[in-house]
C-alpha cells in the first residue's frame, strides 16, 4: 500500500474537528461547534469560511427569537473528502 496524499484542508486540527462533528450530526449550530471544539469564535469563523469556500459545508445564517443563528451543514463533497482523508490516514497508520 502506498502513502496517499492527505487533504491539506482537512489536515488541520480545528477544521478536522469541525468536519468530524458535522459528519456525526450532519448539521450543527455555530455555537455548538464552538463549545465542542473549545475554539475561539474568530478562529472558528476563519476555518469554517475555508471549508465553505472548498464546498465542504454550507453556512446558513438566520434569526431565531430575534437573535442571529448560524448553522453549518456538511455537503456531499465534504463527506466524500472526509472519507478520502480517513482512507488516506489508514494507509499511513498501516505502514507505520
Amino acid at each position, binding site marked *: 500500500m502506498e502513502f496517499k496524499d*492527505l487533504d491539506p484542508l482537512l*489536515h*488541520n*486540527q*480545528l477544521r*478536522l*474537528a469541525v468536519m*468530524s*462533528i458535522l*459528519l*456525526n*450530526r*450532519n*448539521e*450543527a*449550530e455555530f455555537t*455548538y461547534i464552538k463549545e*465542542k*471544539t*473549545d*475554539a475561539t469564535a474568530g*478562529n472558528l469563523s476563519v476555518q469554517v469560511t475555508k471549508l465553505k469556500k472548498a464546498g465542504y459545508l454550507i453556512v446558513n445564517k438566520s434569526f431565531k427569537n430575534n437573535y442571529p443563528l448560524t*448553522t453549518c451543514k456538511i455537503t456531499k463533497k465534504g463527506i466524500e473528502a472526509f472519507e478520502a*482523508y*480517513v482512507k488516506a*490516514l489508514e494507509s*499511513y*497508520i498501516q505502514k*507505520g
Partner: protein
Amino acid sequence: MNQSSEWNESQSIQLIRSMIEATKYQVYEEKFLYFLWGYGVIIAGLSHYVLGYIVGFEHPYVSWLLMPVLGLVNFGYMRQKHSGNSSRSWAARVLKGIWIGMLFGILCVVAGGFAIGWHAVYPFFMILYGVAAFATGTALEYKWLIIGGFISLVIGGVAFFLVFQFQLILLVAAVFMSFVLPAHLMQKK
C-alpha cells in the same frame, strides 16, 4: 483548540474519535421521557385494575385518558429541548424513526382494540414496547434496554394465553422492565 504546527496522522485519528464521542447521542438524553411514559402507563394500568377488579367501577378504562395528557407533555418537552439546538446525530434520527413508528403502531393497535376487543390486542402493546426498547438498546449499546425490551417481548407472547385481568398486570410489568428500570439505571458515560 488552536492550530498545531506538529500534527501527525495518529493525532488526526484520535481527534476524529474524540469529536464523534463528544457529540454522539447518549441514551440518558431522553431519560425524562422514559420516566414520563413508564410511570404514566404504570399508573394508568394499575388504576384500571383497581377500578375494574377491586372497586368494581363501571368504566375503569377512564384511567387511560391520562395518555393524551402525557402526549401533550411529551410534545412540549421535545419542543423546548430542541428549540435551542438543531444539532441532531445520526443515532438520534434513527431513534426518532423507531419511536415515531412505535407511536403509530400503538395508535393502530388502539384502533384494533375498538374493532376486535382489548383482550385480543393488549399483547401487541407489550410487543411494541419491547421492540422499541430492544431496538434502542441495540442501537445505543445499552444492555438494560436490550434486556428490558426482550423481557417485554416475552411477556407480550405470554399475554396471548391469559385473560384481560392478568394482561393488565403483565402490561405494567412489561413497561416497568422496558422503560422504568432501564431509565433508573441510565448514567452519563
